[in-house]
């Protein structure tokens, strides 16, 4: 399955400049991208954990298909994939950053703060890689067999509230949600004014606390987004 993702494009730095003569500024841009990817990864990790837990607490060898659980199992898969994309891209960017830091063109101008930022990025990448691997294992070994027995397609639905109070870090991080293709996400999930057209199903991390999905114009009312929610077209009115 292919999953195209919104919101983050790869490092926009000119590869020639970066490969031949990185500067401290180039390195800092790279480290900022790693941070951005991992911040999003953190939000996706939170959403993945909540949705996975919702599935796993009910999952047994003979459990039958059930619509809400089917949805959660699918959401968990999409969120895990999206999380992996962030972590893997962060690992890739980290490789570039390490090359830049070692380059004779940049190295003499680097400060202690740069070295610390690089070390922090290395640590964060490692931590999230391990966390993702654990989630991926649960997904592959326990949820995927259920998914194959109970296939479904994505439908709009709310996310999951954590019953325990959010930590300060959780409060700071964004909210990872899923978007269904064919509409607009309102307002701009990255904090801009313009809504974003959703070309394909995607996982995003919202920059604003509330959002809504609209087919053509942003005439919807934004609602508070919870981790793992699916934004999409409202269900068809039930026929009398």
């Amino acid at each position, binding site marked *: 399955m292919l999953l195209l*993702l919104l919101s*983050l494009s790869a490092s926009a730095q000119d590869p*020639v*400049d970066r490969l031949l003569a990185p500067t401290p500024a180039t390195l800092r841009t790279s480290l900022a991208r790693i941070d951005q990817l991992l911040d999003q990864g953190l939000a996706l990790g939170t959403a993945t954990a909540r949705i996975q837990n919702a599935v796993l607490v009910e999952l047994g060898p003979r459990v039958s298909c059930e619509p809400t659980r089917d949805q959660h199992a699918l959401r968990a*898969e999409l969120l895990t994939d999206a999380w992996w994309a962030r972590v893997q891209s962060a690992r890739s*960017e980290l490789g570039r950053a390490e090359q830049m830091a070692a380059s004779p063109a940049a190295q003499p101008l680097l400060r202690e703060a740069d070295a610390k930022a690089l070390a922090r990025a290395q640590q964060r990448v490692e931590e999230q890689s391990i966390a993702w691997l654990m989630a991926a294992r649960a997904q592959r070994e326990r949820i995927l067999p259920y998914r194959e027995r109970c296939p479904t397609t994505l439908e709009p639905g709310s996310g999951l509230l954590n019953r325990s109070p959010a930590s300060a870090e959780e409060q700071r991080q964004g909210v990872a949600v899923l978007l269904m293709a064919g509409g607009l996400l309102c307002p701009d999930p990255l904090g801009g004014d313009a809504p974003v057209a959703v070309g394909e199903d995607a996982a995003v991390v919202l920059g604003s606390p509330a959002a809504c999905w609209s087919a053509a114009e942003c005439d919807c009312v934004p609602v508070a987004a919870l981790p793992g929610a699916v934004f999409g077209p409202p269900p068809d009115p039930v026929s009398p």
Partner: protein
Amino acid sequence: MRLALLLPVVGLPVVGAGCLGEEPAPEAVAPPSPAWVGVLELRLEPVHIAEGVARPEETAGLAMALLERRLGDLEGVAARVEGLPARPALAWAVAPEERWRLAVRVEGEGEEIRLNSQLCDPLERCLDNSVPAEWGWPGAATTATVAWVGARLGRRFLGSTETWAAPESRDPYALLILGRAAATVYGLRAAPDPEERDDPRRDPLARSVFLDPTMATGWYLRARSPLSGPEGTRRQHAERASALDPGDPLLVADAASLALMAGDPALALPGLESLQGVAPDDLRFPLALAEAALLADAPETSRRVAFRLRNVPAADPERLSLEVRIAEATNSLDGPQLDRLLQEWAIAADQDPEPVQRRVDQRVAAGDLAGALELMPELQARAPGEATRAQEMALALALGQHERAATLADELGRVEIAAAMRALRDLNDPAAAANHLAASGDPGARLARGWLLFRAGRTEEAAQIAQAELELRPWEADALALGVQAWRAQGREEEALALALRLGQVDPLHRLALAPSPVAE
């Protein structure tokens, strides 16, 4: 000002407010008139023993030890023994404003001896003094000599002198070994071999306090000598000495300085603060206090001390260095103020590359790369070598001065970097730029050449470079991206798609990647 002196009047040059910017809290405002007692360095020459004096090494050693200890108790006097590092208490003393010299001779026959001293000012104008001495324990004679020096220098005693004359031990043999230990410390006698150190049978330093552990001078010598072990151990020796002679504030300073040297500023702070009560104006100690406070996460205390230090002579590199670090820790200076302080430090320490390097770093941090580059000749003069050249090269490169950077790389013998700089210089002509990199063995340069050829429209060569690189490094994202672009430009979508999928595994969010699901596949 308490510098009524022997010959020329020694004055303390007073500098105006430095460049510390805004003043700290009201209680920290510098006093209107400076009350500091400047540091006078007193070079203590090795005690000369005339022929005929019994046990010359031990006698000289003991005289040296007692003189050094007691001279330290004169306010602001930094007694230094030629050829030896200063005692720990003086490690943070500000630069001396004058240098004097004291030569002592022990003359006499057998045990009938005298201490003859000569004190010389910076212009080598000298005064003589002579006192009778008791062989075996010249405590009274050294006390009288130090009192005479103090009177000449106009410096008061900080501690109590009551106990100075009495022998530190009732055991004459212990005193003899104490003198031998001192002779070892002051280089008048060979030090024991490393395997003999700390062995009370062979090492006089260990033996003296083994024979009589109540001798403060024995513990002082152990604290003073680097041969006695690491600073942490020596600090304990100094503390023992201080406990045995609580009237000697310099022993407190020794212990505190050794704690600071051992990386334990919190342990150093109480002693240094207590010295402020005994000798608040003595310029041998405030730098240590400021340093300890800074390292013990009390930068405001440090800053208060440093603020008061603004009244001391400006040209003290240690003080200026500390002021810089305090300013950095407290974030109390803006960029130009810090630069001025660094400049002041650079002038005071005219051979030291550190202040210039810090100015460079500060300008780089502020984004003033051109300003940093301007300082390179000065840095090169102080720290000639490859590291400075490499720094200059990086600055030139960051400023887009590619030819200058290339020339510096040539000078450093870094051919591939020089080629890279010239490729960057010729970026407007990608084919020409690629030519510079043709012989480079650097993987980054090889890939950059591929990208340049791609830009020049030579997509087939670019694809070949990508393929060759992928044979060496199959998961190299830049090679995969180059391959995707190059194959696609040639209309070979199948090859491009294969590489885009592989790129998706390496860097799923790369704009050229197609990302698979790692879970579902």
